[in-house]
Each structure stands twice: as C-alpha cells, then as structure tokens.
C-alpha cells in the first residue's frame, strides 16, 4: 500500500470515448470524490479510446466510461458515469463497505 516510488498512492485511469455526456459526468464525479477523500494522493489519467483504440485490450475495456484502479492492487473496475458516490468509494476501497 505504501508508495515506494515517486508515484502516488492512488493511480486511477478513466477510459472514455470522445467527449460524451457520460464521460464528462464521470470525470467530474471522479474528480470531486478524489478531492474529497484522497486529496494529494491520487493521479487521474484519462484515456480517450477514439484516439488510442489499441489500449482498450490491455485493460480489458468493453464498457465506456470505465474507471480502473491500477494502484493500489488488486485492479478494480467501475463502469458507468460514477453517479453513485457510495458505490464508487466502496468499489475503490476508499471506504470499507
């Protein structure tokens, strides 16, 4: 759990496909939750699959938008516009269920 390298404790990736309403909502929601609960310990990488379709296979992406928690392990995925805060926090193990 402890960050060894210069990386942050939470590495999050958000996969989107263009600037759709769902993607925008998801990103807004995510940034809000992170600011509230993980201030300073997180990094969000947004990947637009329309630009880099070859990346979809690596993280087993099939739904859009998908949030992937790369660090800390294990990898977790949350799909949808992240409108349910409770679910996102539990899904990311930020808050215990």
């Amino acid at each position, binding site marked *: 759990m402890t960050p060894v390298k210069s990386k942050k404790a939470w590495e999050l990736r958000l996969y989107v496909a263009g600037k759709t309403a769902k993607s925008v909502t*998801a990103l807004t929601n995510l940034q809000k939750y992170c600011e509230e609960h993980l201030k300073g310990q997180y990094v969000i990488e947004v990947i637009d*699959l329309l630009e880099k*379709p070859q990346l979809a296979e690596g993280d087993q992406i*099939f*739904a859009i938008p998908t949030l992937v928690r790369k660090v800390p392990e294990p990898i977790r995925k949350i*799909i949808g*516009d992240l409108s349910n805060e409770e679910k*996102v926090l539990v899904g990311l193990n930020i808050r215990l269920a």
Partner: protein
Amino acid sequence: MSKSQKKNPVASHRALPKSATGIIGLDEITGGGFPTGRPTLICGDAGSGKTLMSMEFIVRGAIEFNEPGVFMAFEEKADELAMNVASLGFDLKKLQADKKIRVDHVHIERTEIEETGEYDLEGLFIRLGHAIDSIKAKRVVLDTLENLFSGLTNQRILRAELGRLFHWLKEKGVTAVITGERGDGKLTRHGLEEYISDCVILLDHRVIDQISTRRLRIVKYRGTVHGTNEYPFLIDEEGISVLPVTSLHLSKQVQTERISTGIAGLDQMLGGKGFYKGSSILVSGTAGTGKTSIAAYFAVEACKRGERCIYFSFEESPKQIVRNMSSIGLDVQKYLDNDLLHFHASRPTLYGLEMHLVAMHKHIRKFKPDTVILDPITNLITIGSVGEVKSMLVRLLDFLMEEQITVMFTALTLNTVVNEQTDEGVSSLVDAWLLVRDIEFNGERNRGMYVMKSRGMKHSNQVREFLITDTGLSLVDVYLGPEGVLTGSAREAEQLKEHTGKALRDYALDRKDREIIRKRRVLESKISSLQTEFESVEEELNKIYLEEELKKEIMEKNRKEVMALRRENKDIDTTSAPAKKKGNK
C-alpha cells in the same frame, strides 16, 4: 433460385452473396456459406461445437479464401483457444503473426466490476473496430456474446447495446458469427435470436442409447433456399464435417459396364459378365456362410483391375481378414501394400449411426474408391433401429450412386423377425441380392448360393453349391437326385453311385449286345438250315411237278393219237346217217 440468377449477370445482384465457410458439407446445405456482411447466429448446448465451428469459419476463411478474421472470445483465453484448435492442425499463433487472424479475449469478471450509473459498450465497439481495421478483417466471430449478460447486471443497457452492435456489424460489412448458449424453450438463453434474423444455425448433441450424435439444423436463413433437415456432423482431427443427408432427386448416371465378382461361377450366374459397375449388391446369409469371403473376393478382384477399394469392417480387424483370406488362397496384403485397398475397421458401437455415415463419407471422399465394401451392415442394428439403419443406408447409397461407386453390403440373417426386416428393408434399395444359405442334410452343413434378384440383367434361377476351398471360392451345380437336392458329401456319394450304376449298366448293356449277336447268329443258322430244307422240299415238289408235266404231255400226245384214230372211224359213220333221216319223213 441462385443458380439461374448467377448465370444472368443482370439479375445477379439480387442473389444473396455468401461467404463460404470451408467446412465440409456446410457450404452445400447452406447453398454457399453464411450471408456475406450479415451476422449469423450459431446456437447450441454446452459442448455442441459452437466455438469450434466458428473458429473453423475464421481459420478456413483466412487460409482458403484469403479473408482475414477477428475472433473475439468471451470465454476462452487466446492461449487456450490456440491450444484447443492446434489439435485440429490450425496454427493460430502463426496465423496471428501473419496478420490473418486476430484473437481478442474479452475478460469479464463480475467480482472485479462495479456498475454505477449510465454506461455503454462503446469500448467493445472500439476494440472490435480496431481489431477489424488492423488486419482488414472480413469475418468476425463473437464467442459467446452472452457472457456479457453474466458479467453485467443492467439488462436494459445490454439489450440496447446488442441491437446497436449488430447494426454496427452490418454497417462494417463484416460477415459475423455470433454464438449463443441454448436456453429453455428458446434458441438462446438471452434471446439473441431477436437481433439476428438473417441466418440461425442450431447445433445439437444428443445421446440416444448411450451413443451421442452431433446434429446441425438451419433454423432459418433469410433470402435463400437451404436444407431443412437435421444433418449429422463429426468433429475429428480435421475439424468439422457435415453430412449433406439425402440428395433430393433420383437422377443419377448409370453405367452399362459390367465388372467381375472374382468368382467365375457367380459371374456365370449373372449372365457370364458379373454386376454392373456402380450398382449396389447385398450379400446376405446366416453365420459362417462365407459372406466375408465373397466380399473379400470382390474387393481383390477390383484391385486386380487396378481400381481402388475401401473395405469397412464392423466385425473383424484388417489383420484378421488378411490372415483368414490367405487361408483360402487370397492374397489381400499385396493390395494393401500397393495402396489400392484400404481397410477401415471400427466397432459399430464406437459411435452413432450418423457418425459412421459421416466417417464413411469422409473416407470415401478422401480415397476416391471405385468399390466400397461394408461388412456387415447387420451389426449397425445394435446402435439403431431398423428404420434408422435403413435411412442411413439410403443416404450412403445415394451418395455412392452419385459418385458411381460400386458397393457390396453383407448382412447376417438370423432367424429373428427384426433381422429379416433389415434384410428386406435394404433389399429393396439394392440392385442385386445374393443369398448364401446353409443346406443342412445328411448330417452335414453345406452352402448354397442363389441370386435373389439382379436388376437389369439375365440371371440364373438355380441354387448353386458354394465351396470354400484352400484355393478359393467356387460354385458347383447342386445335384438334383431322385431324392431331391443333394449337396456336399451326399452329392459326391450320389455322383459316385451314379457312376457305379453307369458302369454296371454299361456292362449289362454289353452283355445284352452280345446275347443279341448270338441270338442273331442262331437265327441266321436256323434260317439257312430252313432254307436248305425248303430247297430240298422245293426240289421234291418240283420233281413231282415235272413228272406230272411229263405225264400230262405224254397223255396229251396219246390222246391226240387216239383222236386221230377216232377221226378216221367217224368218216365212215357219216354215210349211214342221212338214211336214218329219210326214214323219219
């Protein structure tokens, strides 16, 4: 409908374009393959061969038709898939390296996924689109798409997205195959058939009497004529082969060429020339009557003519047959060595009837024989009913006639009703029927053979005795003695008896002849003595006659002399006479 239109270039655009699958038999029943640029649904139970069929569609498309394909696997990982199909001789890794195939494994693990709010499956579309574009794929397989349903909970979104997916696939212009697990009372568990309406193929894997048979049925195929039956198919080391069941018409070519049976006596019974080439022959008989020997002779005779022959044995192993036939002076091994003769021995219970049929089909297509032997068909009844066996044989016969292959079946007749039915069931299908039967007489068993029927040729109506000797098979005339038909040693004995009788008769005849000669001699001597006697009597009689004559002559002479004397006296008398008259006046 497509045939006439293909010839007509103006109308050709109306015919549904199809992408050949390359799967043996499937293209025939679909009339050319799956609809090009449209999705096809392959559904079936677990283990019915969906994945394999779709994989073969992709691999054969890439190898044989130069159409690259994307295989999107929702169940198995790429490595697992590669390993699974390696057993069929498909090198998936190499094909992937050559950019002919792309395998993408979509891993959906419910425990790793949390759903919150609205989403869509654009990610899947992008992945698929990327895969298609990267190798310019013409074919796509989604196996098994329904795994999405177990991985995601929001059915509403899923259904909407699936509808969009199929629409998108059509727009992409790829020929897609989607597999789906069969559900209760529905073709697929999640009703995928609602989205795919162009072509639906149902695979089935049924176990009847402990024997499993795979079957395939085209449930629907919009805009084309297709076979509607259930077609059995086989998965073996070369992939799938589907058997096109029955030809729809009886319009086969026939041959007038005749071929020898290898048994001179039998050829004689068939008008001296044997059977027609490309005809079907049934040899039936009770156990141990030499059916296999007849079949082996027929096979070897074909090889002697330089033709190819496949021998399907359901009872004996090839080695057994080779050994057994060498005991009657038939060298089978020679033709095995020079590859004219092939043996395929399998137990009937190895797999179902349909499978046997498919397997035979395959072997025949591969080896292209002129003659096929099935020995015996009766054993097939152990794995199917009379009707099933018959329908299977009809199909096999159809196929063989189409290919102008001569076929000989052997059938064991037992004294049970069921087996008589088999005999009769098949007998109406075949062109010629030989019956070999036991003739039990005089404390021994002998074999008799007769031609029950032989279409289109003159044939003997006689029962011939059928001999199996160290030097081979031969037919001898059955001996018709005063006490009826005799065979075996009784025939020999009777012939011997007749021989003795003849000698005796000849001797008796000789004696009679001599007697007659003697009689004649006696008669002749008698005749000559009688003649001598007659001559003496005649002489005696002649003598009397002469004497008489002489006497008569002398007497005549005397009389004349007397007469002369008397005349002189008369002259004197006449002078006195008128005086007498005068006195009366």
